[in-house]
């Protein structure tokens, strides 16, 4: 922003106090690199003799747009500070959704050939939600199916985090951007520098993905699971570790053998753990680090309890097979709590109690610092402690009780942030659910209250499948454009934990 000339006496205030140009420039750089992503499916397309043009077209368009934005930003990028960070994060993720959807649009994919729908699917990909508008996934070509999986993998740990880890010259200012993108209230530092932390977390992420792909491929190769091809093994590894939930199969994980489902359960549980702790446990070979962590304990307790309730509820009801009630109970509990969104069976037909529990699980999420969405266990834990303190202080108003996590006192500001996050989350959820309810009453589809609730919870929490007409084997296709846009927004808000978007809506963000 150029200052007004001094001769005018009083200096004119700049229109904006935020360096929007610098922020746009940085977004441009990030988007420019994101344009490289579709080259992976393009190569696959050539290999499978499918058309690579939707991908190459995306690369061209996104690359050009990125360069243009970068040029607009000019040399002012050094001024991108914590205030601009919110804008960068919000815009980058919005554009990521566009990048994700562009190939569907260019290919004229059935059900995804309108911008609104393509954006929904793209956003569902990068935000690792896993909600889909596709009715029949088999109509996708191999390359397009892999692109869908790949967007989730890219979005799992965060785009900016990825850029920070891979691009040495990217000058993004420190922790603040990282914290607004990484899931969870705090980022556990693993190295002296942010870049080192990020690189280690990414290494772990890649390692887990490769491990899962190998195990799944092995199951297919040894004949344990005939349905599992190497292509599908990679495709599912790419969406398990980011707790995404897209599948190459219309029937999700039901298409695979029980052993495959158990393997996927293990990796979903791992993906829901705090990656920084997981790194320490893996490198230091000390599993005790994990066992001693209060959040991880609660995470495991919740998983076990939910699985047990579901298994008991399922016994002798809708499923057959000896281990089926336990397997389906555990699988669905893990899948929905971590926000993955795979299904080992069509749970839409389960009892009300089971469905209620599944919807409740959508509000939990995994550990902070994992790839999961939703509120996250850490926030529930801290909120529980805050409530317990409030109760004690009603009786003893003068009592000073610092809240501790793993015996370290937690700052009161962090606690306030946690409380307001949860309130904001509930508020947004209620708002989203209301809009969906009104829209479905006017334009269809017909939904029960639980279905509406689950639709809002599954999109805001980046879970994916919901109940009723949008159950795990069905699609979000019946919704009108209004609901589709609302749910796209919910996914976007949920992934970047709302605050970066919501502060943009305040006047004080833009002015002094």
């Amino acid at each position, binding site marked *: 922003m150029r200052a007004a000339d001094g001769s005018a006496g009083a200096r004119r205030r700049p229109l904006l106090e935020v360096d929007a140009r610098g922020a746009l420039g940085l977004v441009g750089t990030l988007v420019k690199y994101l344009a490289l992503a579709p080259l992976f499916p393009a190569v696959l397309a050539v290999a499978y003799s499918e058309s690579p043009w939707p991908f190459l077209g995306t690369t061209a368009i996104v690359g050009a747009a990125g360069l243009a934005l970068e040029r607009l930003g000019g040399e002012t990028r050094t001024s991108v500070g914590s205030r601009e960070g919110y804008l960068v994060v919000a815009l980058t993720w919005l554009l990521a959704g566009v990048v994700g959807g562009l190939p569907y649009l260019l290919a004229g994919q059935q059900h995804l050939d309108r911008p609104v729908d393509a954006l929904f699917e793209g956003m569902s990909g990068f935000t690792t939600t896993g909600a889909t508008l596709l009715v029949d996934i088999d109509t996708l070509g191999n390359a397009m199916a892999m692109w869908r999986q790949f967007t989730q993998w890219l979005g799992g740990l965060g785009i900016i985090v990825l850029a920070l880890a891979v691009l040495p010259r990217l000058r993004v200012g420190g922790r603040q951007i990282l914290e607004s993108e990484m899931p969870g209230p705090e980022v556990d530092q693993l190295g002296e520098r942010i870049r080192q932390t990020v690189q280690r977390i990414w290494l772990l992420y890649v390692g887990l993905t490769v491990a899962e792909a190998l195990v799944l491929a092995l199951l297919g190769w040894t004949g344990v699971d005939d349905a599992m091809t190497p292509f599908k093994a990679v495709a599912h590894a790419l969406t398990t570790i980011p707790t995404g939930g897209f599948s190459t199969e219309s029937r999700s994980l039901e298409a695979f053998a029980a052993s495959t489902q158990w393997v996927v359960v293990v990796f979903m549980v791992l993906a829901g753990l705090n990656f920084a702790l997981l790194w320490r446990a893996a490198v230091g070979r000390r599993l005790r680090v994990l066992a001693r962590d209060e959040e991880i304990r609660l995470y495991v307790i919740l998983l076990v309890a939910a699985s047990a309730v579901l298994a008991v509820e399922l016994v002798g009801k809708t499923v057959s097979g000896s281990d089926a009630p336990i397997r389906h109970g555990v699988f669905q509990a893990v899948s929905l709590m971590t926000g993955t969104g795979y299904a080992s069976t069509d749970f839409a037909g389960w009892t009300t109690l089971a469905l209620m529990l599944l919807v409740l699980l959508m509000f939990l999420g995994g550990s902070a610092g994992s790839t999961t969405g939703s509120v996250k266990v850490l926030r529930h834990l801290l909120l529980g402690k805050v409530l317990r303190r409030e109760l004690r202080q009603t009786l003893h108003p003068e*009592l000073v009780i610092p809240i501790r996590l793993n015996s370290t006192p937690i700052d009161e500001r962090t606690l306030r942030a946690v409380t307001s996050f949860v309130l904001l989350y509930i508020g947004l959820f209620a708002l989203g659910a209301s809009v969906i309810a009104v829209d479905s009453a006017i334009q269809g589809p017909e939904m029960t209250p639980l279905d509406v609730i689950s639709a809002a919870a599954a999109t805001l929490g980046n879970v994916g499948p919901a109940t009723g007409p949008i159950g795990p084997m069905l699609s979000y296709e019946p919704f009108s454009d209004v609901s589709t846009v609302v749910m796209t927004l919910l996914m976007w808000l949920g992934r970047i934990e709302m605050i970066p978007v919501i502060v943009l809506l305040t006047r004080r963000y833009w002015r002094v």
Partner: protein
Amino acid sequence: MKVFVVGAGQVGSTIVEALHGDHEMVVVDQEAARLTAIAYRYDVATFEGNGASRKTLTEAGISGSDLVIACTSRDEVNLVAGAFARIEAPGATTVIRTSNTEYVELWREGRLDLDFVVCSELETANAIARVIGVSAAVQTDVFADGQVQIVEFDVEPGGGQGIVDSPLREARIPHDSKVASIIRGESMTLPGGDDVIHTGDRIVVIGSPEAARHWGEILAPWETEVTDVVVFGGGRVGMAIARALVEQRIAVRLIEPNRERARDVAEALPDVRVYNATGFDPEFLERERIGRTQAAIFAMRDDAKNHFAAALARVHGVEFTIAIVHEPIAQKVYEASHVDVTVNPRQVTAEEIVRFARDPRTHQLAMIEGDRFEVLDLTCRPDSEYVGQVFREMPIRGALIGAVVRNGKAIFPHGDDVLLAGDRVIVFTEAANVPTVERAL
């Protein structure tokens, strides 16, 4: 001996008072008024200047000192003075006073090149914890980092089940403890197996802290063990007291009026319930049932506030009150208002330093019953005639080995145990026998 003292405050003047008779002393302080007060009363040299300045120290004549004591109220000055003393008077023993337990820990780890570090807060806290820890104790003292405790009890009617009126050999004496002395009127004995404790005797017991507590329970079963204490004031002293009490598994509540300080204390001491309140609010005292507590300790910075709060606590029903003394006169004031125990941190610190100054080679001396008995803490020489001997066979020469500290751990020896070279031995002895014992070991 030439003693060099940095700091002429309460601690410094108490030290001067205790040592000026036998030693040649120099006192350094920045405030002329304090020095004048000391110079008028005692025959010591004084020097006005900054104790943290090497120039001051050399000009005041630190070189050639045998003992350097840095006891100003500022840790940094004391540390620097201690460091300069090492340079200017390499042969001198150095003692510093600190209010930070961190320095004490560093010194214990051997990271500070000083001969002795005394922490007022820690000494005060330990003194209070000892009083609270053993019911019915007349006087008590600890050795070997708190692993060995010596307690004096009065044997009152109704107490002492299983011990009183039977020969010691048959008495049910708590494990890890010994009766060191029986005092009956003017006569005092180092008892053997045939001696008998009678009601009305005063006895001295040496043993582990648990055993000491057990003795208290046996001798005064009507006095319930203190399990609930309220500390007023969360300053450094209050915090140290709270920490020491929590270590004895006593439930501690602490009242601190300053909001941030209260938070700091609560963060540092998870097991202490901290209230952000003043101790003068009757409504608060009533709501939290402060009056029901077994003991209240007043550790605020201001004697007058402690005094008022103690009186108010009494009004609310607290029966046992302990107050910290800042100005020496406050002690008399507290006593006049029936505060049960008073502790002066500066006094305690000075005493600790004086103890050390009297004889740095024997670790520590305690005087029981005036000066008729002494407790020695000696390290056993390799050429001592007792090395390798079984305790049962050691001739008694008016002394009793109460405990042995081997590799930092206290052992309470039985008849079959053997004394080794390098053992630290806690000996209870008649004052007249001290030189004999020192020679023998």
